């Protein structure tokens, strides 16, 4: 206290006086304005709900996957998605095939274009989907949404399509990212 300048001493005295005056009064309850916050949050929720409901299929690419770009504008229709990347093939959230270092299916797993583990997984899901469609009295459309990678080799793509054909898929759609 002794080292303080007269200005600092005056400031501390004023601060003490103010604190003493505040202690004499009843403290006011502070209120948070919720209306503006509610407005903002409601707008965000409505926007997100709208973007969620616009497409029947939500495609979440796997890590490191680069979906090809295209000028196509047809929207995705409901179907079973298959993710084919340079790391592996994921079908119905299960990784059924692991690719080799060249980003291709291991030759031991392919026989005359048919990818064995993928065919087993597809056949099982097709049976389930058919049974469900039959119970609901509707026709099974057999649509496959192929979510590939821009670097994926044509030979791998053909093997996947051939396997899907053997598993009784009849409609194919390449999933792409819209350009522009």
């Amino acid at each position: 206290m002794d080292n303080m300048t007269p200005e600092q001493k005056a400031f501390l005295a004023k601060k003490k006086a103010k604190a003493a005056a505040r202690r004499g009064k009843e403290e006011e309850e502070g209120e948070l304005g919720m209306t503006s916050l509610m407005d903002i949050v409601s707008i965000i929720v409505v926007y997100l709900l709208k973007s969620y409901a616009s497409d029947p299929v939500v495609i979440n690419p796997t890590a490191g996957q680069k979906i090809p770009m295209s000028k196509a504008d047809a929207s995705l229709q409901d179907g079973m998605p298959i993710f084919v990347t340079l790391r592996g093939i994921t079908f119905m959230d299960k990784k059924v095939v692991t690719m080799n270092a060249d980003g291709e299916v291991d030759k031991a797993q392919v026989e005359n274009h048919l990818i064995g583990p993928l065919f087993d997984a597809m056949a099982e899901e097709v049976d389930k989907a058919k049974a469900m469609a039959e119970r609901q009295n509707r026709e099974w459309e057999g649509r496959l949404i192929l979510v590939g990678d821009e670097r994926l080799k044509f030979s791998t793509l053909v093997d996947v399509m051939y396997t899907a054909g053997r598993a009784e898929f009849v409609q194919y759609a390449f999933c792409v990212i819209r350009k522009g």
Partner: protein
Amino acid sequence: MARKKKGADEAEVKANMLPVMNIMFLLIPALLMAMEFASMAAINVSPPKFAAAADQKKQEDKKEEKPLDLKVFIMTDGYRVTASGQQEGADAGKSADSNRPTIGLAKPGSELDDYERYDYDALEAKAKEYKGLFPNDVTVKISAEPDIPMQVLIGTMDALAGTTCKIGKYYKGEDPPEDCYFWQPIVEAGAG
């Protein structure tokens, strides 16, 4: 006589917004996780056996019009275009010439992972030319060498359909737009 105001004694009731806010704040991350950050589209591809049936139906409508049977083979050095069984640019007297592409590369000498190395504009011009001759044809058979990347295949499909083609309208029940050329691709294996 002084009249007592109707709601004067009524206490002000404030709605408790905190539970609503809690739900709203939980909804935001849930919806963000389910949200699409890039706009997705689809290119419908026909497998060969089903395309044949579609062709038959079209042919009935066209009253025995000779089909174009357009085929595009993507090679590492360009496109080989074949129509009605005749490769364009083949040597005289030959139906096909496997050594030479019909449309060469736009960027010769570039790496295979350079997706702009192909001459998409020339292919689109060729598709437009064929469409003028066969206005009812919409299918094209596309094949490629084994190492061709998927992006090149998609770029080729875009060029053959026409870069200004908005075929989404057709799937919503409208007629195919006039600026759409060959928008129904059939992917074939080893059809070089």
